């Protein structure tokens, strides 16, 4: 008797595949839809200049979204990103402007210290979560408060000006009219996607996010992976802080306001599974662009910030529903 293993569940396969594809293509279709609508409604939307504008506007949220994508793929979350951006930003600014030592600290060294501080806080959350199985929304919530307080302590609660030009390059300069901040964001995105697609570490993030117990039984060091994604997410807050300092030309302990939820929303808008194991950086780029294009287009049409928030809320609601439905 010949039996055909492949034919066992063809029709339910088809439906499942369609739904799963909708998780991948849904965001792209939504983005195209937004582009079509705004291109028709206003002729200032689809210009080279305005597109660069959108990219520049989304870069900082995008950088944070990359870090959070690592966490969400692994079925973790990082709630501390906004306060971490503030803390590491004011720390670097304080060092380069000589608030602490009698002399100013050279920019590269200040950046390294900032990175070290950010990674250390991420490591605390990562250790508590991976070692003691404390949900990451709790451990990173603790870091949120910690970083918030540290930011206020370091900056004395005041904005820090007089930032040297070399620290502002990424946030301010352009190459061939393309803002460096955009190139910075896209390079980080590319490298992150390559890590996810081609390295064992990237695969293990998916494995742990998909079934932590199975990953452990197959010999994956689950603790190390969970630890690492929270450290990576913390490192990206330092990248975001550097870009942000250049964009606003100073650093202050409140500069992260509004930087927690949009990156997380962008990741989900991009089709990454809320519960881990599915998604990628390209999706996150699409999600970030959906947020950015929506705000930009509505702005061009004269809709104010409140209307933009309502629109983003509606889109996010649909996306979350799709996200869950697509996974049955």
């Amino acid at each position, binding site marked *: *008797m010949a*039996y*055909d*293993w*492949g034919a*066992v*569940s063809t029709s339910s*396969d088809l439906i*499942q*595949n369609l739904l799963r594809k909708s998780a991948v293509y849904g965001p792209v279709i939504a983005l195209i839809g937004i582009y079509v609508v705004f291109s028709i409604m206003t002729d200032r939307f689809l210009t080279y200049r305005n597109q660069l504008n959108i990219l520049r506007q989304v870069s900082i949220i995008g950088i944070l979204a990359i870090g959070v994508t690592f966490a969400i793929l692994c079925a973790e979350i990082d709630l501390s990103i906004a306060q971490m951006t503030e803390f590491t930003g004011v720390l670097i600014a304080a060092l380069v402007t000589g608030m602490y030592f009698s002399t100013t600290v050279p920019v590269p060294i200040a950046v390294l210290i900032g990175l070290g501080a950010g990674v250390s806080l991420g490591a605390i959350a990562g250790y508590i979560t991976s070692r003691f199985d404390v949900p990451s929304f709790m451990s990173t919530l603790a870091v949120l408060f910690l970083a918030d307080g540290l930011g206020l302590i370091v900056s004395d609660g005041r904005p820090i000006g007089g930032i040297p030009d070399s620290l502002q390059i990424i946030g301010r300069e352009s190459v061939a009219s393309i803002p460096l901040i955009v190139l910075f964001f896209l390079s980080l995105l590319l490298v992150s996607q390559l890590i996810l697609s*081609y*390295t*064992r570490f990237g*695969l293990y993030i*998916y*494995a742990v*996010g*998909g*079934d932590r*117990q*199975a*990953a*452990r*039984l*197959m*010999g*994956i*060091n689950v603790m190390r992976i969970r630890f690492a994604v929270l450290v990576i997410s913390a490192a990206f807050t330092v990248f975001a802080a550097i870009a942000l300092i250049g964009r606003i030309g100073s650093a202050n302990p409140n500069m992260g306001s509004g930087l927690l939820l949009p990156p997380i929303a962008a990741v989900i808008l991009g089709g990454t*599974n809320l519960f881990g*194991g*599915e998604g990628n950086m390209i999706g996150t780029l699409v999600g970030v662009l959906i947020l950015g294009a929506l705000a930009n287009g509505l702005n061009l049409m004269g809709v104010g910030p409140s209307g933009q928030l309502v629109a983003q809320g509606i889109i996010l609601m649909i996306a979350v529903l799709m996200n869950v439905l697509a996974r049955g």
Partner: protein
Amino acid sequence: MADRDTVLEMEGITKTFGEIVALDDVDLTLHRGEILGLAGDNGAGKSTLIKCLSGAYEPDSGRIVFDGEEVTIENPREAKALGIETTFQELALAPNLSITQNVFLGREETQRVLPLVSVMNKGTMETRTRELLSDLEIDVDPDKRVDDLSGGQRQLVAISRTMLTDPEIIIMDEPTSALSVEAAERILELIERMRREGASIILISHNFEHMRAVADRIQILHTGRDVGVLDVEEATRENIVDLMVSGTLESEGGDDGDPAVSV
């Protein structure tokens, strides 16, 4: 005391989960090149016992002697490093990954592309997976996600992992529970082939026919206790059932049978 043809000895293994005593002072001996069946009612402690060996659990007390040396197996990585491969009852497949990714999970082939940068060798792994699948006569695309597979296909994918390396001990926890008669027979053939190639095997099954077809000895657990080992010749259905159900051999001779029928 290290018997030359004893590859593994578990002594006095005890494991509790809170109030539940899953294993109470259990011994197990595995001879080199043998297939040891492990039988027992649902909840008797079979999976718990082999999980102490595959690093999924750490026993509360007891010793494990592997190749003449006492070892502690703290996690599945250490078990694999020792050469102990397991097909778990719960399969341990990541539903969101492809068959190839699941087969190689934890031991991906990589190649160095830059100093410090290694990437996965996806082509090699896929070719190898294709071979394994055709060896087990599973006609599915190795790129397919595991959550798109049928229950039997998943079980076969989990089993195919043991063929990837050349382990010293292979543990199979109910490897045929979801399989058709034909597929189950192929797995039994596979088990015998792996034995011929030098592996020592622990097979857990509720199917006496499967067990008797391949096992040399059958050990029975009853409510977390070790109630005896039977050579396959004396392992009649009645004997096994008696031990499984009551922990003693009632039908033998009529008087209080000695439960520990050993080799």
